[in-house]
């Protein structure tokens, strides 16, 4: 009986939270056009979430590509198909690893920064002060940050993919001397525009999901040090889980 009651409470809490996030998303979307009318605010957030994440995205993209080059070469050379490394590596990076790893890194770097910044603004009465100055924080703080994240995420994904493919090439062609012409020509003939669009679409969807979770958690954070810490942690955990679930759904749809 106790177990059933606890289960019911958890289900009810989950449904309530999903409803609250949906309503919050609606409020953000309603304020988005007015936020976009002040491009300087959005550009500043694209810089904060995107440009400041570039180093970590590029570094991780390079190493993910290089690891893919190592494991891919090891696997393919057993079948004498080393020349297919370009195709295998590119497809893996473009369709899966690029958008997913970028989203996970985005949640860890930009998402936590957004959640803690907004949470601290709440804890130090900055959001209430804005409301008292008749300035809607949803328009002035939340919508520009959400828009910045949504714009930055696909751009970061494309950069990750490009650097990742360079990493595969670095190991395959430079280290293991796979024929460069075969590497690139097989990649060009096998990877189509629809594969690239799949990666970009995933990047956009993950951008909406991760940015929404970050601004929601920050905005609804309990205004204490512990509350802001919890919101930051929840941002990473929920964004990561949601990214993987959405990745499965999107892959199944676009297969």
């Amino acid at each position, binding site marked *: 009986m106790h177990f059933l009651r606890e289960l019911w409470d958890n289900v009810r809490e989950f449904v309530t939270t999903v409803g609250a996030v949906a309503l919050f998303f609606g409020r953000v979307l309603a304020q988005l056009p007015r936020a976009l009318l002040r491009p300087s605010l959005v550009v500043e957030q694209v810089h904060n979430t995107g440009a400041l994440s570039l180093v970590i995205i590029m570094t991780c993209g390079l190493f993910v590509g290089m690891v893919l080059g190592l494991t891919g070469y090891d696997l393919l050379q057993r079948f004498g198909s080393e020349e297919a490394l370009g195709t295998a590596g590119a497809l893996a990076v473009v369709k899966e690893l690029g958008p997913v790893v970028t989203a996970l890194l985005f949640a860890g770097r930009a998402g936590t920064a957004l959640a803690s910044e907004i949470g*601290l*603004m709440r804890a*130090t*009465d*900055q959001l*209430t*002060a804005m*409301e*008292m*100055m*008749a*300035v*809607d924080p949803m328009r*002035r703080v939340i919508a520009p940050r959400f828009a910045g994240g949504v714009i930055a995420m696909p751009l970061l994904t494309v950069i990750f993919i490009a650097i990742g493919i360079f990493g595969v090439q670095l190991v395959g062609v430079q280290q293991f001397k796979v024929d460069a012409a075969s590497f690139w020509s097989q990649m060009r003939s096998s990877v189509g525009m629809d594969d690239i669009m799949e990666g970009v679409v995933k990047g956009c969807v993950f951008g909406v999901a991760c940015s929404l979770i970050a601004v929601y958690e920050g905005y609804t954070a309990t205004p204490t040090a512990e509350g802001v810490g919890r919101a930051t942690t929840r941002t990473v955990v929920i964004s990561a889980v949601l990214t993987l679930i959405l990745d499965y759904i999107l892959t199944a749809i676009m297969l």
Partner: protein
Amino acid sequence: MSSSAASTEKPDAQTAPDSIVEVRDVHYSIGGRAIFSGLNLQIARGRITAIMGPSGTGKTTLLRLMTGQIKPDQGQILFDGIDVGSLSTSALYALRRRMGMLFQNGALLTDEDVFENVAFPLREHTDLPDSLIRNIVLTKLQAVGLRGAAQLMPAELSGGMARRVALARAMATDPEVLIYDEPFTGLDPISMGMIVRLVRQMNYALGITSIVVSHDVEELSILADASYIIAGGKVAASGSFVELKDHESEIVHQFVNGLADGPVAFHYPAPDYYQQLLAD
């Protein structure tokens, strides 16, 4: 603002002012605990009104009700005749443009410098050119004595300076009512004296109404034209400070004279001390 401004005198006490804020039979509870149960008070236009009371009596909650951040369970709060609790979000934001609020911690935007903090409401609500905004901001900062600190970040300010910047920001759009939430808490005597002087200057020089929520009896006795003491969810006493000092109510006597024990007990309710000590 120059301290020599001739218009910083109190208005004629004989002129009966009308009310700009009226709290009518307000009931409000949080988590089943009644904060207010039939609260009634009036804030006179153009005067400085103090709202006092022991910690936890709901002074800040009353400010939140007056500014429409929360709604009363029952009763009305009228701002210049408008029922604050019944307003839509857009109407409430329009009404708030007639108010300015000074938060206990200043609530400055930590990523903006002092200049941009004061300019913030002007940039959000007006299309004034930068040159005019600059002049307004410098005028407001001059009034609080911090024109020279315009380029400092909030983290570089002392508590008193942060509150003066917040005051300049609250005044930026020339509101009709300035609300101060615990403006003296945690300040040294010099900063406290500055804030007292500023509140008085702003009120009488600009002809605005000031509502000061605090428990600093001494400062409010110098500052306020009228005072309310809230206790037990209602107004326990009201009037001038002299009238409050001679008030017959025990709780008012304890509060005004700063006595450690009285109706507000020193000890939080607990089981018998000796029984608890000997229990284990």
